[in-house]
């Protein structure tokens, strides 16, 4: 898969580690924030823009809490972003919400758990079916 990734300064170290994981898993990584000095707003906007243009399959944004990227990403048309702090939710939110972007808070989620979240997120597929009405509703909202 093509994965767009970005981070602010506080998420930079974890982003570098997740990039290595993505490499090992054989994914193509599109790093939208090679610079380490962005805020979460700019980092999120960059990743979201790549997803909106369908230049990547999924996006990952890392800052300290995940809460800011969640607020910013979900204001964008067609973007469904989950702030993920557990492996089970990572799997469920793809299946039910067709989540195209996840946010991870590097201050809250440890690096091993973050790796497992990313693995679960990339392994899972959207269930479609009855879930599509909710996704249609979200996409109409913005």
């Amino acid at each position, binding site marked *: 898969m093509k994965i767009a990734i970005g981070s602010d300064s506080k998420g930079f170290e974890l982003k570098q580690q997740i990039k290595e994981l993505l490499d090992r898993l054989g994914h193509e990584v599109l790093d939208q924030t090679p610079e380490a000095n962005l*805020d979460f*707003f700019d980092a999120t906007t960059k990743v979201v823009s790549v997803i909106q243009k369908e230049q990547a399959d999924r996006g990952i944004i890392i800052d*300290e*809490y*995940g*809460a*800011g990227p*969640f*607020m*910013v990403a*979900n*204001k*964008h048309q067609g973007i*469904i*972003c*989950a*702030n993920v*702090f*557990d492996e*089970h*939710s990572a799997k*469920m*939110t793809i299946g*039910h*919400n067709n*989540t195209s972007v996840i946010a991870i*808070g590097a*201050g*809250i989620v440890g690096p091993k758990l973050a790796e497992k979240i990313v693995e679960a997120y990339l392994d899972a597929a959207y*269930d*479609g*079916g*009855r*879930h*599509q*009405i*909710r996704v*249609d*509703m*979200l996409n*109409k*909202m*913005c």
Partner: protein
Amino acid sequence: MKISIGCDHIVTDEKNNLVAYLEGKGHEVIDNGTYDKERTHYPIYGKKTAEKVTSGEADLGIVVCGTGVGISVSSNKVNGIRSALVGDVETARYAKEVLNANVIGMGGRIVGEGLRENIIDVFLESEYQQSEENDKMIERIDALVANEEAKNDDHYFDEFLEKWDNGGYPDK
């Protein structure tokens, strides 16, 4: 405080328990449903709950679904809402203090009841720490405007509900 609350059919019991918890603490609660366990769709309740906050009828909103993701995403897509999807106390505190979050979302099947209550306590008690930096970030988030015409339109989702009723969505 006046709290607007909403959930989907997966966590109706959990939402009802939260209503009782909040009322027990002296808060006034606007319960936007859902009220039973019949299958329904989280954006309806995320939108309703959020709109009570932007209209000023409620001070803050709480949304709950299975993982919390769907309903908190839908609340965040309402103009003027800054919604935080959390699973721990500190993220709730940060979201209020730094981002002045006005809706909090949780997964009723992810976070246990005691932790949920503690997260809500901290979210309600924490105060926005005003600063030029925080104000500016909030302005930037609020400037990302979604569809304004959606607000307070109870028929906004009718096209999808009609399609649902007509079997347009395969019922997995």
